[in-house]
């Protein structure tokens, strides 16, 4: 009973801290009503061990885009749900995720991957920061149109081979350049996975470290 009485007070002070810092970051960027909703959601999320940056960023984004507050609120709630899904999926895969990993998992879900996909990545046994980067890259590959099976296959084999994060981060660019040659994203990812499994390596693209040229946009028709 004493422990039960002590715990809520501790939660209260941590929650108060979380609430104040959230409010500060939203001030002047979202309407007061939306801000108080995000403080509520963020405080509750923080108490569950979830990152709050994704919630704050989504609220600011929606307000900047002129979206009606109700819709922004729904989007923020969806982000919270995706973070919960990611956290559960990571734990299911044996990870003890930190907030960066959960945020990365949440992004992967936004990009279209499922809880099972995230669990599969966690099961590779990779730890932070490699797992965090792996999740971000998996989401990015999904955003490029790589189907989940090929996506998780490529990232898993790369994580298992103990590649440094720099090589993981190159995967989306490799897929893009293969796609530019005419193959589908699925084929590109599968090809890369085979190459990684055979321990072939691509050299780093020119300019890495001095600057990272973003692929230029193709001319508009």
């Amino acid at each position, binding site marked *: 009973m004493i422990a039960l009485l002590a715990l809520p007070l501790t939660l209260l002070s941590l929650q108060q801290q979380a609430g104040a810092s959230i409010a500060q970051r939203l001030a002047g960027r979202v309407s007061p009503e939306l801000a108080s909703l995000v403080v509520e959601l963020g405080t509750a999320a923080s108490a*569950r061990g979830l990152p709050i940056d994704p919630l704050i960023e989504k609220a600011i984004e929606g307000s900047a885009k002129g979206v009606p507050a109700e819709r922004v609120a*729904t989007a923020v709630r969806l982000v919270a*749900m995706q973070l919960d*899904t990611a956290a*559960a*999926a990571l734990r299911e895969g044996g990870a003890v995720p930190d907030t960066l990993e959960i945020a990365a998992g949440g992004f992967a879900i936004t990009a279209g991957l499922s809880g099972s996909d995230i669990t599969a990545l966690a099961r590779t046994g990779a730890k932070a*920061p490699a797992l965090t980067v792996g999740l971000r*890259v998996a989401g990015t590959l999904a955003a*490029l149109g790589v189907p989940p099976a090929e996506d998780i296959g490529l990232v898993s084999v790369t994580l298992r081979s103990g590649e440094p994060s720099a090589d993981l981060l190159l995967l989306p660019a490799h897929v893009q350049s293969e796609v530019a040659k005419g193959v589908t994203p699925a084929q590109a990812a599968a090809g890369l996975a085979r190459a990684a499994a055979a321990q072939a390596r691509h050299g780093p693209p020119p300019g890495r470290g001095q600057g990272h040229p973003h692929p230029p*946009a193709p001319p508009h028709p």
Partner: protein
Amino acid sequence: MSGHEFHPLVKQLLDGDITLADLPPELRGEGEAALRLLAAVDRTDISMPAVTWRVMTTLERRRRRFLPWLLAPALAIAAALVILLRPTPPAPTAALVTVRFVLVAPDAKQVSLAGTFNQWDAQVTPLVRTGATGVWTATLTLPAGQHQYAFVVDGVRWVPDPGAPAVDDGFGRRNSVLTL
């Protein structure tokens, strides 16, 4: 009166129809005991912020057909007890990456960049038009990590980067993704 029942007048006192002063002297003691009982009523307000989120996600879930096990209500409550054991992430790396953003928009009068790295503010990161061919560029130095962004054309049109991976922004549009 002895027994387990309150005197009818004391019940009227409890109902608020009469006051303690209205009771005959022999009932004052019972009346005071009755009021002490009422004073023990817990009237503290209860706030349940999680209910809104839980309701809306339940409604959303039925639309999107997520796996049910991922939304067990017990998760929210069990996780609250884990707060003191939550691992903190390692200090963020200081790595910075220089990135060049390009948009071909010959008809635009003004193009800017808005994203997670500048609070989605369409005013603070303008692109520069190079020559007459309608190629707009900006070069930024960004921290390693995950970023989302879009171009803002003429202050009103939000356009994702055609050359970049894209995700649903939750508002009916797409954001571009930059993973550094």
